[in-house]
């Protein structure tokens, strides 16, 4: 045909993998008993699509395999087969097999033919008789009836070939089902001068003799639904209902008058029956659109640059004085409008990349299901907050760490059923995944009701590995934190699941790279909880500009509690070093940014400065700065891309005048001030270096 079908492969693979995921999650729901009958239809449809698509693109192995699955599923949805545990498990395995086959086809890898064959024969065995098959009368007209043969009139529209379909392939498939005779009608071919080689001018009359159901014929032509005129008429009529339900005609095409004249008249019930299905299919397709992620990234970058330009214009506008005032007024109004529009645009664009975390949580039911049986433990997975949205890149990067945490919970946390009963706990352990928004962050919790982290074993192992001195006393928190050290594991032996000791430090590093943090709390025999905190938006934040000496910094508005002018009477100096400010009922440590950063301030005296009270993780400090400048939205640029992470700074930005301003990181500032007594509060706890 000359058309390269491979360009459509990518879409086929993407859709097929999505379909497999949908199948998997529906199968799991069914196996938990929490599904409804709709689910089996969903699973069937997904399998059907994959079968059809793979057939069209020539992946016959996939097509054959999914055909067996589909037959099994068909019986289940017709109520002819019981939906039981073993069937569901076999189908789950089959999903894996299909996934492997598709991956091999996509990446050109090796196909595990043995596994495919073995699973396929098990599917066939199940089909053929091990299980009880309930005989029931077919509900849909024409479903099970078989005819001597069919007369098929096939007139594709000219653009059919451009959709990547090849009529000859379809005819091959038909020929496999029975005896096929094909008569081509070439009357539609124009003269050589008008001939477009990419268009289809042919139509065919086919007769297919054999034990074939109309359903099977329809399947083959499903992919060209909407791109052709198709009439299927039985040659030997056995049931008068047949004629009525036969057609899959999708619309008339004026220029195919030639074919129409020859078409046999047949009753036409299609408009009502076929259309709703199609309409439904189309409606679903129209509600979303696939976009390459690089396009989105570019769009977001553009919007980021737009924010910078807009703020520059805003700055210039506010500084204009000598211009004719009516024009100035117009300009100012225009700039205000621009700011509003830019802000809305930016919010919309940021939302494009936000996905519910369920995309990431989806892999866990299957994983817990498999892993718990592998480990011989009974585990129930609870998921909450799966609608919480976060940026797609963050979600992709957090997936692996989460997998690691859940594996750990299953492997180390949850005890065996016997051990749990002995402790008076229910036999089935619970692992809970929870996500919610808090402040400008998303919080993800992985908790279990297992045995908790063994603090004394951790301490012993740490001492054994010389990570800490033998007699150094550690608080419980610090002890638990030790699990994040590289190479640390208290597992007695390596297992495939965990124990290699390379996990937790990588987890923490990955989370830190995203600008987040991870903490663990645990109670002996009660369980453990890992809390991961991640920033919601990576790129843009609302900031307060402030100046210290000749340097300008940005403080994220979200961290600011309040700003005030100091009343010197309310300052107390502790131990001659640290300054505390009494703020209503609370004491706030005063941190001089000039000292922390080594900058010469405008004035050293407290009255001249301003105190900006900031908060993070429940800790508050008051930053002493020289001046508060404006507030603006800034685009966060990474310091680490070309330089490295600097403590106390979360990044940099480019101001309206083109200069670089540094963005302050409250957590880092608190840590820094804790170390340097001259600039902040006295030591409250032991400092690990």
């Amino acid at each position, binding site marked *: 045909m000359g058309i390269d079908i491979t360009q459509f492969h990518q879409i086929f693979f993407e859709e097929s993998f999505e379909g497999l995921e949908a199948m998997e999650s529906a199968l799991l729901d069914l196996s938990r008993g929490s599904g409804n009958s709709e689910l089996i239809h969903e699973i069937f449809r997904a399998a059907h699509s994959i079968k059809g698509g793979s057939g069209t693109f020539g992946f016959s192995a996939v097509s054959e395999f999914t055909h067996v699955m589909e037959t099994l599923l068909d019986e289940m949805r017709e109520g002819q087969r019981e939906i039981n545990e073993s069937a569901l498990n076999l189908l789950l395995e089959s999903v894996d097999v299909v996934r492997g086959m598709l991956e091999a086809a996509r990446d050109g890898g090796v196909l595990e033919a043995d596994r495919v064959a073995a699973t396929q024969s098990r599917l066939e065995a199940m089909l053929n008789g091990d299980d009880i098959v309930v005989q029931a009368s077919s509900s849909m007209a024409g479903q099970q009836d078989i005819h001597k043969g069919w007369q098929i009139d096939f007139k594709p529209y000219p653009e059919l070939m451009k959709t990547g379909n090849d009529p000859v392939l379809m005819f091959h498939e038909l020929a496999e089902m029975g005896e096929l005779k094909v008569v081509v009608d070439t009357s539609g071919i124009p003269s050589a001068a008008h001939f477009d080689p990419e268009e289809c001018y042919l139509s065919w009359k086919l007769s297919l003799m054999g034990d074939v159901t109309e359903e099977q014929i329809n399947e083959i032509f499903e992919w060209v639904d909407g791109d052709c005129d198709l009439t299927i008429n039985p040659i030997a009529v056995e049931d008068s209902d047949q004629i009525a339900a036969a057609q899959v005609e999708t619309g008339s095409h004026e220029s195919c008058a030639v074919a129409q004249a020859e078409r046999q008249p047949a009753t036409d019930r299609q408009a009502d029956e076929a259309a709703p299905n199609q309409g439904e299919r189309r409606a679903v397709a129209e509600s979303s659109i696939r976009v390459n992620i690089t396009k989105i990234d570019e769009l977001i970058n553009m919007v980021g640059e737009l924010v910078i330009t807009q703020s520059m214009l805003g700055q210039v506008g506010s500084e204009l004085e000598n211009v004719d005032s009516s024009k100035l007024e117009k300009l100012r109004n225009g700039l205000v409008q621009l700011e509003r529009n830019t802000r809305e645009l930016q919010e919309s664009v940021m939302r494009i990349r936000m996905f519910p975390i369920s995309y990431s949580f989806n892999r866990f039911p299957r994983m817990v299901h498999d892993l718990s049986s592998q480990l011989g433990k009974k585990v129930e997975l609870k998921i909450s907050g799966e609608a919480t949205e976060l940026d797609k890149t963050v979600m992709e990067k957090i997936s692996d760490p989460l997998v690691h945490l859940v594996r750990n919970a299953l492997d180390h946390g949850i005890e065996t059923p016997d051990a749990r009963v002995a402790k008076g706990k229910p036999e089935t352990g619970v692992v809970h995944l929870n996500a919610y928004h808090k402040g400008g962050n998303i919080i993800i919790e992985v908790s279990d009701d297992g045995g908790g982290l063994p603090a004394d074993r951790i301490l012993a192992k740490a001492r054994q590995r010389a990570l800490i001195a033998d007699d150094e006393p550690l608080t419980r928190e610090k002890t638990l934190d030790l699990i994040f050290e590289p190479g640390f594991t208290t597992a007695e032996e390596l297992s495939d699941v965990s124990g290699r000791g390379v996990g937790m430090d990588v987890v923490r590093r990955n989370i830190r790279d995203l600008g987040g943090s991870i903490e663990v709390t645990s109670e002996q025999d009660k369980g453990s909880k890992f809390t991961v905190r991640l920033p919601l938006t990576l790129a843009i934040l609302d900031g307060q500009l402030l100046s210290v000496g000749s340097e300008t910094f940005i403080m994220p508005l979200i961290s600011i509690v309040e700003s005030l002018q100091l009343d010197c009477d309310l300052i107390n100096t502790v131990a001659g070093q640290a300054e505390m400010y009494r703020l209503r009922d609370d004491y706030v440590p005063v941190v001089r940014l000039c000292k922390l950063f080594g900058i010469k301030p405008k004035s050293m005296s407290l009255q001249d400065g301003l105190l900006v009270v900031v908060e993070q993780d429940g800790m508050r400090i008051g930053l002493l700065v020289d001046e508060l400048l404006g507030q603006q939205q800034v685009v966060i640029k990474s310091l680490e*891309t070309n330089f490295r992470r600097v403590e106390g700074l979360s990044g940099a930005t480019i101001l309206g005048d083109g200069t670089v301003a540094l963005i302050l990181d409250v957590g880092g500032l608190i840590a820094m001030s804790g170390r340097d007594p001259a600039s902040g509060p006295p030591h409250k706890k032991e400092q690990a270096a």
Partner: protein
Amino acid sequence: MSAVKAEQQEIDNAATLIGMSNNDDQYLTFILDNEEYGIDILRVQEIKGWDKVTRIPNTPEFVQGVINLRGSIVPIIDLRQRFNIEKLEYGPTTVVIVLRVQDEDSDCIMGVVVDAVSDVYNIAKEQLREIPPSFSSSIMESVRCIATVNEKMVILLDVDHLLNADELTALGSIDT
């Protein structure tokens, strides 16, 4: 005979480390404290004048700060201070060479302040001479070899080692 071969092999190795292949490679040379240094020209992104820099707190002295280079935040290193030579006053003739530095898994862009840019030379592998390994300090490790061009000595630098971010961290006493 074999000693010469061994030496040639070592030069080849050193040459490969700098990222040279085949016989001639191009180097951009610059002047620093009356000495001429060369860097692989493929690593040079651009040459620009000195612009106001935003200082980053708690970084080593030779890290002057960062600038806005068409939307990216690029750190500027003073090469004199990096080599522990006294820093000069910056003026309108001060030159910044913007380089592409490769770390094990990432690329980044950094600028270095030098006294003046000199020339572009094609230097053949045969003209390279090794530095005796007895001079060893972290700075000297950035010097890969020496070449003689037009009867002048040109010191060829390894950009990646010179501006390695970890090095900068290690040398700077404040750290995370």
